[in-house]
């Protein structure tokens, strides 16, 4: 029997696979803006974010068969990206800040109020008191383990369950890191906006 004579079934299977692959790549590329947006906040610099996104897509395109159609492709891509980001020498960075955090959830509002930037009570316009640069600087000052969760949930709009799966940590850890990460973010925002306490 000749190897060069594929059956009709083989041909159909190959054609189907080719279509699946094209579909996967198109869907993955459609998500690239969102993937970049999160990479930009997870990585330290624009260059790092660009490298990270490129590596993510290289790996995703190679491993496309591991993706189960119909499941959350954005989460699948983010899982690759966060793994790559952790592998990129994150271990040498300082470990998460485990000191007790005195500031509560009203801290930022209270600091702005004390500084005289407190708004007219009926028009609490955050954008009059904080700039985009304040947010970018404050986010980058949040330690990685906390920032990962804040970026996925508050910027990427992932559920706690998705974030847990992406980062391969228990859902309870997602919740505690999110709680603490948001408080650290507000402390950093207060420092950006009105100076260190």
């Amino acid at each position, binding site marked *: 029997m000749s190897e060069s004579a594929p059956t009709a079934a083989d041909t159909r299977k190959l054609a189907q696979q*080719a279509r699946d*692959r*094209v579909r996967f*790549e198109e869907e993955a*590329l459609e998500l*690239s*803006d969102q993937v*970049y*947006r999160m990479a*930009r*906040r997870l990585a330290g610099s*624009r260059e790092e974010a*660009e490298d990270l*996104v*490129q590596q993510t*897509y*290289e790996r995703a*395109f*190679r491993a496309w068969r591991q993706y189960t159609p119909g499941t959350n492709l954005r989460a699948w891509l983010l899982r690759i990206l966060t793994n790559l980001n952790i592998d990129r020498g994150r271990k040498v960075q300082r470990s998460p800040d485990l000191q007790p955090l005195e500031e*509560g*959830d*009203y801290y*930022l*509002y209270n600091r702005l109020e004390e500084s005289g930037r407190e708004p007219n*009570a009926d028009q*609490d*316009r*955050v*954008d009059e008191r*904080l*700039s*985009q640069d*304040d*947010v*970018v600087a404050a*986010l980058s000052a949040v330690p990685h383990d906390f920032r990962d969760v804040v*970026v996925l949930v*508050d*910027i990427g*709009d992932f559920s706690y369950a998705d974030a847990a799966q992406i980062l391969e940590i228990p859902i309870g850890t997602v*919740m505690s890191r*999110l*709680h603490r990460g*948001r408080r650290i*973010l*507000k402390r950093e925002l207060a420092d950006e906006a009105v100076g260190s306490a």
Partner: protein
Amino acid sequence: MAAVDPCDKCEELLQPYLDRELSDAERAEAELHLDGCSYCRRRYRFEEELRRFVRQAAVEEMPPDLKQKLAELRTSLF
């Protein structure tokens, strides 16, 4: 046992409230307090707006050449 200050309690509920993670009873407790407390109400409203602001402020457009590079990584076309 010392009584918990109701505003401290409300502050504790802020994040799970906005995340819609509270039980019905806890949510009702927070809303009852918020109805009568402008101090907490302002801070809740601020937090809600802050989250929206952070989300928008964090957005940075992808450089067009990166998009092109990603498209070139496709293997199915070759």
